């Protein structure tokens, strides 16, 4: 199969709807297993930290929420670029669907960060580079949602959102390296892709479980949102009417 025919298949909402339908139960099962299992593992079976005691256990939600919030933004910006360059409708739907999910994950990251900050740092909030840039990420997501709703015309909305998403992508490396570039209260990353991670393996394993679980959970919810969008946009087509009637019969 050539690249271009694969591309066209992926661009077909009907094909995507049917293909994603097969993935849903696997994504749901695996993500909940990893998230619930990883959280129980991290809360009940991992030893407490030598300095922070039990407070550190919120890492099993905080790090996955933060990482996926950033990964979701990059996915949204790439979908925006694909939509702008190839005018692929499915990419616009993906972009629109990611914004509320990403906003929720960013909010969760900020909330768990505040809850973690109080017992360890001694404050809920501080305007350091890491926390402020994540707050900007939250506002970018809200901005995309608001911008989308400000347009009557769907294509104009998608184009404007795509540009905003691409411009805002500059914030992602800033978030990631903020703790290296500037003096901050937030500590640098514990998980290293190139060197030795500074989190003990017994604590790292459940974190890997909740981290991958959160990525799968995001994919699952994203597919659900995109499928609703596909049904809404194609509601007058024959295949959607067959699909809905076929399912309710």
């Amino acid at each position: 199969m050539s690249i271009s025919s694969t591309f066209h298949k992926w661009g077909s909402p009907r094909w995507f709807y049917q293909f994603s339908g097969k993935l849903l139960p696997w994504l749901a099962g695996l993500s909940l297993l990893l998230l619930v299992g990883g959280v129980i593992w991290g809360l009940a079976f991992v030893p407490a930290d030598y300095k922070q005691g039990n407070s550190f256990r919120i890492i099993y939600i905080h790090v996955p929420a933060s990482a996926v919030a950033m990964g979701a933004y990059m996915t949204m910006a790439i979908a925006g670029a694909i939509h702008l360059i190839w005018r692929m409708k499915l990419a616009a739907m993906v972009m629109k669907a990611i914004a509320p999910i990403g906003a929720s994950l960013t909010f969760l990251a900020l909330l768990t960060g505040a809850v973690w900050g109080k017992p360890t740092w001694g404050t809920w909030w501080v305007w350091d580079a890491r926390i402020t840039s994540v707050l900007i990420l939250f506002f970018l997501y809200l901005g995309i949602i608001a911008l989308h709703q400000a347009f009557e015309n769907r294509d104009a909305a998608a184009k404007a959102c795509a540009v905003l998403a691409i411009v805002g992508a500059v914030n992602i490396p800033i978030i990631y390296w903020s703790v290296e570039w500037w003096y901050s209260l937030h500590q640098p990353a514990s998980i290293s892709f190139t060197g030795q991670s500074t989190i003990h393996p017994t604590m790292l394993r459940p974190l890997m479980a909740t981290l991958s679980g959160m990525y799968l959970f995001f994919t699952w919810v994203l597919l659900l949102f995109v499928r609703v969008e596909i049904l809404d946009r194609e509601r007058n087509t024959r295949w959607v009417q067959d699909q809905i009637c076929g399912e309710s019969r």
Partner: protein
Amino acid sequence: MAMHPQRKQRLLIILFILVVTGLAAGLLGYALKENINLFYPPADIAAGKAPTGKSIRAGGMVQEGSVQRASDSLVTRFVVTDFSATVTVEYEGILPDLFAEGEGVVASGKLGEDGIFYATEVLAKHDETYMPPEVSDALEKSAASRAAQQEKGSL
């Protein structure tokens, strides 16, 4: 795969947007470096880069053996170091649980004319290391035995 010229142009426009916003953000971050940094390290304070009498933050590591607590009040004095310079901090109030000698700290307050930093808030800054207490104990023990062995060797 040859790209349609119109799509190629759109791709170039997007790359251009990315480069320009990246450049703008980079310049902004560099120009506002002083403001984005949460605190001044002791070296900057010693070099006179931090203003006196103005609300600022100082950050670094609490020097081992430097914490002095008043017996009749909540006043604490300690030395913050970045291993090239030090600044003495005075603070009245409750310190966070993770405050300890050899640990990171960020204090907000004012630098007095006498060179002492009068803090109104002290936050603990912990590092990115997480491990079980047994592992930390074992690491300390092995470091201690290594030090003892080195001492033996030097005798």
